[in-house]
């Protein structure tokens, strides 16, 4: 198990990152920190996905004459789309947080 984990170091790292993000989401009371946690989780998953698509010695998926070996383009496309989705969710989270902040401050005033 250890040896396998070692060769899959990126996966292990991304899992650990994921858990760190999860901890922030679960334990931090601050809304902004929760959002940051969510982003850490997201990034961890992107790392994971990119790792899955890797191929040793593969070139970036940009077809050029003479090169036969490319890395898998599909995870990259997936990450690109998930990134945009991530932007959307983060933005919405910020919108709600900002509005909530406004409401609570408004009541204090």
């Amino acid at each position, binding site marked *: *198990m*250890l040896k*396998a*984990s070692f*060769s*899959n170091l*990126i*996966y*292990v790292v991304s*899992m*650990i990152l*994921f*858990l760190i993000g*999860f*901890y922030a989401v*679960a*334990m931090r009371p601050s809304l902004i920190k929760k959002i940051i946690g969510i982003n850490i989780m997201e990034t961890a998953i992107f790392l994971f996905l990119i*790792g*899955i*698509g*890797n*191929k*040793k010695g*593969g070139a*970036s*998926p*940009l*077809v*050029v004459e003479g090169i036969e*070996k*490319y890395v*898998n*383009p*599909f*995870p*990259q*496309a997936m990450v*690109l*789309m998930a*990134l*945009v*989705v991530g*932007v*959307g*969710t983060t*933005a*919405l989270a*910020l*919108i*709600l947080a*900002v*509005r909530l902040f*406004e409401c609570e401050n408004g009541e204090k005033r």
Partner: protein
Amino acid sequence: MKKFIVIVLLVLVGLFLLLAVSKMPIMGDPDSPTNAIATSRYIAKGPQETGCNNLVSAIILNYRVYDTFGEITVIFVTLTAALAILGREKAGEGVSPLKVSPSPLVSTIMIIYIPFFIVFAFYVAIHGFNSIGGGFQGGVILASVLVIYALVFGYDEAVRKFPPKRRILFEGLAPLCFVVVGFMSILAGTNFLNLNFSSVSHFRNFLTLILEISLGLTSGVAIASLFYILKKVERE
């Protein structure tokens, strides 16, 4: 107590995930299922079938363009939510005149650079076919231009320059483009969002270009709009 439970839970989940990770195929193995199965066609036939040398663009704009449609909708939904919850910003609404006028150095440089930025954004968007880049990337550059403009010349000035009325069409451009292209492909007798419905290969490239540009414009303008809306609350 809660902390303890969460940490125990996380450790358990972590061990579980690590176990799974250790059972996964070795990273970068050329024979692993991910590299063996689906990718062969993307790499072997991608450029001929889609006209994109950039395989990532080929996937997001042709093989899985339906996903991209969903994804640009996500941006639009976020924008709608922002409008519903926070409301559209208005120029001069509760304006307090800028206390610090922009430094002439910064503003002059920005005025010189902004056209280049915009050109660069379009370049990235259009060139997504053949090289690194793509609609979203270009769009984000565009958005950053709009954001920088607001930072340098002040929020009100930016809102006055790019009022909501002008942005509104761009915001909805990409989803509408996708649906229109989808309808066209259905009318042409193929399935939804098939870009290859015409035998003329240039037409396919033209459609891809249109989608690429609309993606860029929409994501850029929508992200900028989100920024403006959030910024509005901050200054109130």
